[in-house]
């Protein structure tokens, strides 16, 4: 069987055997010749080394296939030798999904398996939001002498889906994030939702119904009443999912995109509760658009979107991304009076320009920016300075920015709210 490759593990033994035999003859010592003979036997053993046909079955069990975030899920991996020959040396490495980290026990095992035997390994992963599929399991097979090795892969489909509930936080101070009054609208039919706004001087051509007759009766002047329509604002939560936004202060922390998605899902729930129609969009290589709407179905759709859409996955995307095309597409989809809440860490200048462009197009933009900077290295401190400068620049252009550090989102919102209402 010509499976596998030569590891060159025993290279050089033939030289030792020759040297021993030569020394044995030179010194007339039979013992050295015997030692050389032993070496020849080992060389023969290495020569006939071979790996049989590898036929393995892998099964994986999860203690909970739909956990909540930060739950510990125990994974049991079972490897069975379905072939007819013993596998003397197998080293198994399980394909843990890239977004999940193992909390306890390596996801590996090493053993020898007789035909029909099963080996088991257990380890624990910490759940994070998203849909995670296990990759192929890698098995390194060797013959008993270690001279021949082969890399095999086996697959078992396993998926972990973590869909957190959209937080029902009715007391989140979100008033500052959106403005309720979308602008002046002239309509003929007063009804609920119309509010008296102002009186102005009569202009030729104003509809007769709009004349304020009380004033005419009192003073004899002609004046027109204007109404302002209170309409539920359409808000679109745009999440920055570009590769540049996938940064984190250290290995253990959440990435900036994960925090942005957290903020977006919290804002979604709260805005929906207060009667606005809310939509979701992703700004990045993976496209995602949920048009603004309201209702229980819409909430369920958004929950599924935040949890399982590949655009919001915690792993960096790898696809072509054309920023200007994406901005144009977003502009086309946004209603002319839609407000935008842009969730982005603002670690590069393009995020700033997106916010300013949307504001220039006439959408009221609020930026919610999780802070992923740290002070661990010189570059990190410089990045913190740069981000601070970007926030100042945005604020100077009239865009509201919520700088979200380590505190809970509610605290950051309250602090910002206090600042904005001044």
């Amino acid at each position: 069987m010509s499976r596998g490759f030569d590891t060159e593990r025993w290279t050089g033994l033939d030289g030792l055997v020759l040297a021993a035999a030569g020394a044995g003859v030179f010194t007339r010592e039979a013992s050295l010749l015997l030692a050389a003979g032993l070496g020849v036997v080992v060389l023969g053993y290495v020569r006939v080394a071979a790996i049989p046909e590898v036929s393995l079955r892998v099964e994986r069990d999860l203690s909970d296939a739909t956990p909540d975030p930060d739950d510990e899920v125990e994974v049991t991996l079972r490897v069975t030798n379905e072939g007819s020959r013993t596998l003397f040396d197998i080293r198994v490495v399980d394909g843990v999904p890239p977004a999940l980290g193992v909390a306890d026990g390596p996801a590996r095992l090493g053993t020898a398996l007789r035909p029909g035997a099963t080996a088991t390994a257990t380890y624990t992963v910490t759940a994070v939001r998203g849909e995670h599929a296990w990759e192929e399991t890698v098995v390194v097979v060797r013959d008993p002498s270690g001279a021949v090795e082969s890399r095999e892969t086996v697959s078992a489909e396993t998926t972990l889906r973590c869909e957190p509930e959209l937080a029902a936080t009715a007391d989140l101070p979100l008033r500052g994030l959106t403005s309720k009054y979308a602008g002046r609208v002239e309509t003929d039919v007063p009804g609920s939702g119309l509010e008296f706004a102002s009186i102005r001087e009569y202009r030729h051509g104003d509809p007769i119904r709009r004349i304020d007759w009380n004033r005419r009766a009192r003073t004899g002047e002609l004046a027109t009443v204007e109404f302002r329509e209170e309409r539920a604002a359409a808000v679109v939560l745009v999440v920055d999912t570009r590769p540049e936004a996938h940064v984190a202060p250290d290995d253990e922390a959440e990435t900036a995109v994960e925090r942005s998605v957290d903020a977006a899902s919290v804002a979604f729930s709260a805005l929906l509760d207060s009667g606005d129609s809310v939509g979701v969009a992703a700004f990045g290589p993976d496209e995602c658009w949920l048009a603004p709407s309201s209702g229980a179905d819409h909430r369920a759709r958004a929950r599924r979107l935040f949890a399982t859409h590949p655009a919001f996955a915690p792993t960096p995307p790898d696809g072509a991304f054309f920023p200007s095309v994406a901005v144009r597409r977003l502009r086309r989809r946004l209603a002319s009076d839609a407000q935008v809440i842009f969730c982005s860490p603002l670690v590069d200048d393009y995020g700033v320009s997106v916010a300013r462009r949307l504001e220039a197009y006439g959408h009221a933009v609020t930026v919610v920016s999780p802070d992923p900077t740290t002070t661990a290295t010189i570059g990190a401190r410089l990045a913190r300075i740069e981000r601070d400068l970007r926030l100042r620049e945005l604020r100077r252009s009239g865009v509201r920015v919520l700088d979200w550090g380590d505190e809970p989102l509610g605290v950051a919102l309250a602090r910002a709210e206090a600042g904005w209402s001044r």
Partner: protein
Amino acid sequence: MTLARRLFLLVGVVATAAGFAVVAGVSLGLELTDIFLGLVAALAALQGLRYVQRRRETPMNTTVTGDPEARVAVPIPGSDFDDDLVSAMGRHTHWAARKRVVDRLEARATQALVARDGRAPEEAAALLDTGGWTDDPVAARFLGASVSIPLRQRVRLFLSGQSSLTDRAGRTVAAIERIGTDDGPAGERR
């Protein structure tokens, strides 16, 4: 099996059998001198050592296993600046990397002076030229001001091992951090 292998196998089996035969007492009518024997043995030993040398040159082939236990690693913000610092300090100094480092710090210092300290852009550029934007001469000098560092301080820096590019860049970043705060440079403050 190749012809050469077959030949060696034949020689091997015949020689070993003949050897055992002589050991068992069968006379084969061969006479060999000591010197010849010593020569053959020495040659065999040397050839053996050559084969052993081969091991040093042969790399071991084995599968490399990945690290699926770890979460996929994402960079920390600013790691590209750290990379530039490392390549700027390399043995073959990367002038491009060094220029990037200095340019970036210059740009940020100017922006900080405008945004945090309320200066006008021309004023900020002038401050960078004279070095008046900070009270740290090392940082001022790093961004191109012709400020002289007192000899004593220079010696102290050299002795304490803080004169490398990374250290100077670090001091400059610290100086930029201080722009606009209360412990900025003395002088006109708006």
